[in-house]
């Protein structure tokens, strides 16, 4: 069995209630696309290269932090530091609660990729009988007090003051080289934070997801046998927690595990 533990910040530029789910700029909810930024698209982005990356904000990047082979940690495993990516424009499927309750919004489609140095694990969540993409609601909201420290959010009570301080520091830094548009955008963010007070600060609550990925919609590539195991095509179990929502930075913290059946090969035995 191979177990990957991953975590990090993702970006999701989406409107929030009571704005329509497809609201492009954000008006009456907690989130806004400020001047100079593209319209919202609701896509969950775990890779920094694909993100808009507000600054000051969070450092985007969900990566594998720990690899275990048959219960034993492998600190030199090739997949340590591998990016965890959701493909095909995965987004939260709520539709103003018409489709799903706010606390149970599914991630749709669910198609994961973990890839590094030529090793690739990829699998889609599809119906075994029909082959169609499956949609699955979150399994509720889970309080996880450790998430504040893990994510680096720290004390939620001082979050707004710290973020406003960081924005003002950037505005006041002559070396930052801000354009007029960037200044207006930062001032807009500061205004929203001041207006909303301590409302939408990152809190240690997150939506829990549990997926069992099965079937032939899977790819395991390991031409140089760096995985140190042969990953089985049996069910892969994915558990995710997405929370600590930072409405100002349009980011959330993701952590989770992937467990796949596997058989160790010679490299693993040598270790």
């Amino acid at each position: 069995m191979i177990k990957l533990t991953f975590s990090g910040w993702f970006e999701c530029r989406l409107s929030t209630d009571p704005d329509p789910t497809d609201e492009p700029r954000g008006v009456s909810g907690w989130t806004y696309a400020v001047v100079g930024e593209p319209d919202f698209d609701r896509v969950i982005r775990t890779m920094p290269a694909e993100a808009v990356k507000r600054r000051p904000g969070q450092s985007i990047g969900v990566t594998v932090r720990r690899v275990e082979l048959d219960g034993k940690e492998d600190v030199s495993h090739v997949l340590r530091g591998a990016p965890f990516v959701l493909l095909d424009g995965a987004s939260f499927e709520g539709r103003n609660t018409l489709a799903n309750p706010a606390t149970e919004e599914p991630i749709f489609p669910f198609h994961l990729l973990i890839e590094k140095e030529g090793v690739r694990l990829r699998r889609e969540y599809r119906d075994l009988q029909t082959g169609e993409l499956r949609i699955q609601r979150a399994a509720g909201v889970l309080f996880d007090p450790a998430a504040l420290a893990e994510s680096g959010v720290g004390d939620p009570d001082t979050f707004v003051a710290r973020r406003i301080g960081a924005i003002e520091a950037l505005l006041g830094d002559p070396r930052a080289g801000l354009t007029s548009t960037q200044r207006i955008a930062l001032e807009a963010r500061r205004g929203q934070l001041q207006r909303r007070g301590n409302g939408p600060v990152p809190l240690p609550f997150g939506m829990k997801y549990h997926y069992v990925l099965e079937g032939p919609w899977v790819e395991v590539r390991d031409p140089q046998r760096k995985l140190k195991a042969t990953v089985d095509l049996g069910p892969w179990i994915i558990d995710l927690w997405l929370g600590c929502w930072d409405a100002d930075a349009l980011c959330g913290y993701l952590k989770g595990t992937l467990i796949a059946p596997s058989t160790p090969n010679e490299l693993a035995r040598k270790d």
Partner: protein
Amino acid sequence: MNKFRSSMTRRATAMAKSAVASDEPLVIDTREELLDALTEAVRIEHVLMLQYLYAAFSIKRSTSEGLTDAQQEKTRDWERRILEIALDEMTHLGTACNLLSAVGGRPDFTRPNFPQAASPWYPFPFELAKLSDPCLVRFIRAESPPSAQAAALEGIAPDPLSFSYVGDLYRAIAAGFETIDAAFARSGDPRKRLFIGRPEAQAPTGWALNFKIFTITDVASAKAAIDYIVRQGEGTASGSEPSHYGTFRGILAELRQARQQDPSFEPARDVVSNPSTRPERDAAAGATIIAESSIAHPVAELLSHTYSTMLMMLSTYFDPAGEATEARATLQICSRGLMSGIVRPIAEVLSTLPATADDRGPRAGAPFEIYGDLGLPAYAPGRLAIIAERLEIEANECKRLAELDPGLTRLRFLAGNYASASARLASLLAGGGSIP
């Protein structure tokens, strides 16, 4: 007074009462007068909300529409503030329905189509118009406390009426609750009670974030609810609390200042006033008929049809006739979801589509027309079936329009919202939807 007047007669009486000169304060001292006044309050909250929504949806969104970066953030802030007020009006509407229901009334969501000129029965004109200086002055007039009338808006006040201001109507209603309840108590007849409504018909508070609906059980809760509504509209004498009146005045001042800085600044799209898909028999002169050759025409029809379906959901929700708890929960979710997830985005789309055959002409807007009778049968499965049937028709029409015009990208997404709402209702019907 005949205790069994038809609702039509009641309405006519309410209109006639409205025409009493303003130096004769509105006095409510019978249940029927209270029902009339609350029905009027429901109607006024409804039409105010639609006017605010229309103005908000007309606001320009991006630099591609001629805004500077700073103006883009400014107009977004105005839109947000106006939408917040519209949301407050929705909660007032919900509380007014609870007030009505508590004393034995049945919420009625019918209203005349736009426009309506100022008249003895409408103390200010009801118009769908883009955000502008005169539009904001009209909104301030609607929300203003009586004492501010002369100073702030000299010369535009209509002829004196029994309730020239929304706050006046509510104050009269609050006094009416006290007067009538005390009269019943004095009668010594235990069968005489003001609060004869079904408790289960009261809408609960937890509809959504910042959606504060009061449940009404007695005079104290009724007065607290009314006090809250009046304070939100007019503010307090000290001006220490934010109010609709104060917010609109603030936006007007900012708009005038922005115009001084940039005389060419235009915050709203060139949308027509009072759009309509057809002549409406109950509308005053001044409607703008959307050209049938424009794609805006069928989109506007879809919007108005869906808006009426939402009103049917609300009237069913606020006047349950055997619907099971699950059915009421579904109606609550769907009516709220239709407002945020379907009606609003289509209204926004309409403010970008041409109202005339000339693609370069003025834009259309959401007509919020009511085409026919909103009345539904009192038989729960029957009325749920009608609502489900309408949603299915609307879902298909949305899909058809999205396929007809590839430019309607938001409609492609909204077709999924319709499908979700339609599936919810269909599932409810399959399970019966009513208490066996």
